[in-house]
């Protein structure tokens, strides 16, 4: 594991940034910036505003980009903030879906951990654990992610226990 990989933590949450992420995760992980690669949000000024307010109150800077630009943005941030203050610049990446995370890791983003939560119930999706509902496509994405980032799991909050992601849906 290189020093660089220790800098990026990825979270999957359908709601992207909300109060809990901004506050709780910040307290636990002490990251420096938040990157939200999301094609829908990037053009949704109102939701961006609301999320930005939450981030600002936690003294964080948010970067809202499209998924395809996500890896680039993360790399850029890492480059710009390298060994600043003598400790690693930590980036918290929030994606709406495992598919987005997969796109990131396939584009070369090296992450320390990937956790899933708040993947809401939708037609065709089965409950895996807590608020995580997945279909086979999600599981497949998760499997690919796990190849790049071994520490990939379901986790409600920073202090909750991690749950293994199955590879196939239960019949």
């Amino acid at each position, binding site marked *: 594991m290189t020093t660089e990989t220790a800098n990026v933590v990825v979270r999957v949450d359908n709601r992207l940034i909300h*109060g809990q992420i901004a506050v709780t995760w910040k307290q636990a992980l002490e990251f420096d910036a938040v990157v939200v690669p999301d094609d829908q949000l990037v053009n949704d000024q*109102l939701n961006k505003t609301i999320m930005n307010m939450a981030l600002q109150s936690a003294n964080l800077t948010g970067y809202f980009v499209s998924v395809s630009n996500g890896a680039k943005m993360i790399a850029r941030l890492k480059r710009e903030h390298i060994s600043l203050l003598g400790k690693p610049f930590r980036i918290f990446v929030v994606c709406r879906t495992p598919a987005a995370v997969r796109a990131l890791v396939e584009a070369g983003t090296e992450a320390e951990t990937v956790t899933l939560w708040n993947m809401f119930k939708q037609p065709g999706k089965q409950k895996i654990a807590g608020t995580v509902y997945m279909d086979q496509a999600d599981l497949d994405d998760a499997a690919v992610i796990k190849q790049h980032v071994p520490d990939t799991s379901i986790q409600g909050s920073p202090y909750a226990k991690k749950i293994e992601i199955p590879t196939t849906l239960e019949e």
Partner: protein
Amino acid sequence: MLTNRERVIQLLLTTSQDLAPNTLGVSAQFISKKLAIQRSTVSLYLNELVRNGEALKTSTRPVYFIAQSVYEANPQRFIHLNEHLEQQKTAQTAKVDPFKQLIGAESSLKNVVNQIKSAVIYPPNGMSCLLVGDSGVGKSYLAQLAYEFAKREGFVTGKFTVLNCAEYADNPELLSSILFGHVKGAFTGAEATREGLLATAKDGYLFLDEVHRLAPESQEKLFQYMDKGTYRPVGETKAVYESNARLIFATTEKQNIDFLQTFLRRIPMVIQIPSFHHRTKQEKLDLIANLFLNEAHVMHRNIKISAAVAALLVNAELPGNVGKLQSIVKLTCAESLLKQRDTTTSLLIKVADLPLDFMTNKSQPSVTGNPILINYHDSEIKEVAIKERTKLFEFATEIIEITQQVGSDDVSRQQYFEVTARIANKIADFVSFDLRRHRDGSILEFLETTIKGILGNFYLDFGINRFNSNSHLLALIVLFLNDFEDDRQVADLTTTLVQLQQQFGRRYNLSTQLVQAIAVQLNLQNPELYTLFIFNFIFAQQEQLIPIKTNAVIVTHGYSTASSIATTVNRLLNGSVYEGVDMPLDASISEVVSELKRYFRTINTESDLLLLVDMGSLTQLAAMLEPHYDGKIAMMTNVSTAMALVIGQDILKNQLTTDRLKKIAVQQQPQTKVVIPVQKAKVILTTCITGIGAAKYLQRIVTDSTNGSIKIVTKDFYQLKQNGLQDPIFDQYNVKLIIGTDDPNVKEIPYLSVEELINPEVGNRIFLNAFPDMFSQQQLTKMNQAMVRAFTLDNIAANLAVLDPQITVGQVEQTVLILERSLGRKMDVYLRISLYMHLCFMVERIVQREPNLDYHQVQQFQKTHQHFIQITTDALSDIQHYYKITIPVSEIGFIYDILNSRLDLANLD
């Protein structure tokens, strides 16, 4: 070899020496022949010599020259020449009247000059006169001119001596001695006999200024001198002295009755000098310009006096009169010179250059002036003429020209009438339409009343019975004259007026009568000019050529409504048909009737009467009029210009009948045409790049809140940005507001971003501006609430598995409201949305028995934030009750974190 010039000089010299006593001198022709030099060349040289003072010339034909040196060597030798020179001198004096250079000698000082002149020429030794006037009006100057006049006329040969009695007022004896002289030993220090000013001024004039400061004894002595021509010097007891010195007195005293009465009794002629304020405008301008000209000569610079300065000075009430004006001009030039050192340019005199003490309590003059240009080199003063003034004198010239052409035969008179009417129309048009009025309306109204009063007396005589409409026009013309006349001489004005008086005596007399009445109200400079214009106007109005059998009157309520319809129609018909009677807005029928009764007195009440009125009951009016009118009365309501015109055409042809009137009434049905503006719907344009979000809620919410009166139209952002206001959408709709995620920068139309829209602090204001009449603050608050709720719903609905989003959001809203109150903190809209969403999901997870119990250090939190936990639990009690759940402290901890980061809850517990 001598030059031609030298040869001419030499020949003049030698010939002069040989001249016989009875000859006048050498002629140019003689020299020309003798020297064989062209005569014109000889004349040139000779005249040069005269200019240089080396030769004298006679004003005879032919002209004779004589060398100055030869003449001066023995003047007595040339008897004949001497006689001639003497004649020449008197002739010259007679030609140049010293009063010519006095500004105003031809107008406001005309009387003064005449009085002074008659005092001078009064036989045998002139008449003593007293000049009375405020200080600075020019009394000394006038006395000086009187002396010069007397001298040039050959009445006096002596000196002009001045004594200012005020200088010695403290020492009457000394003054007396200065005036009358004293003998040796008359008083201590009188070591020699000394003659007084009366003796000094012998054969001349003695001017006694401030004569009211003269002691009574001295005055008495003066009176004695005036009576007998004799006086006694101080200390003289026996001998009586004689003098022929003429006396001019001057005083500023008008109030001192004692002094005046004595003096008035003894002084045959008292001359009042008008103060600056009472001089005509043109005189004032001349005075001002001449004072500036003097300064221009001193400074060797041309001057341009701004119109404002000229106007201020002309309108100034100067207690010190011309004297004061002079010092103002000097100070002003000095001030201006200081600012404009470049001597090559003209000195521009601006208001700021005027002395401060002059400028205090000065308001801007109502009468505007013209800039004045002063060229010191040519001593030229030029007032930059203004258009209106030029126009005025053009009109005057035109009237005079056509009047002089008029003969006495009828054909010519008819032509004259037509041309006059044309000019009168031109003038009427000019004063009505082209002239910018700057006097206030009260003068106009006042003048109108006066003119109306006089014209009213002349209905029957001249058929000038359209007095209301006419007096307004005439008042405008008079004001035009008053604003722009100056006292320039108008060629042939007087003779033209004499001619008019002879040919059109009665109308001419009416004109002069009007002028006299106007003169009471306005200050007229050239009354003849007024007479000319008024005559022109009155003459053009006469319509006796075709006697009209119907008295037609328009009666309406409101200032000048009737008279303006009457004037307009009369002008269109080219004849006077209608009389306009303007009634006050609140005039009752009986007031209308009494006004009409006054009019009846001036017309033939046996002919038909047509009344066009604006409104009211005809039956009642007819009943009230009937006893006062002898002829047939026809009436019609709803008077309009068009109606009056149609009827007027009939009246002019004397074809108006009852049937005809009825027909016209039918025809005059008002036409209606309502122009409906293409009502473009007021819309809000949304341009969401993504197509999601705002547009959806907006449409629904705005439609709900305004009952559908505001439409939401969606437009592609990129098209809008490219086309701007040219986009066809703006032809189709009245776009009041653009809402979007990005500003398309359409000029003139306000833009509201979605995040501003949801924030009432920004959004409400913009909504109110865009739709001022549609929203109340309350409505907007409601609309915002709905918007926030809709937005929240949109964000959570898809993600809630078990709860009904509508119900839950409503409950959550309530919870947040309670929380706000309990905490005493207002949350901004973004925080509220965050919280709504958080709470919805929280409820859902607790209902699903998956609460988040991972809040770190829950015990610690529970201990330190009891108050917050209590408040929050209370706020959530309805939800807990409704869903039969208990909110764990851990979840409250998360709520605390969210709020604490935004609201500062530090001092809560």
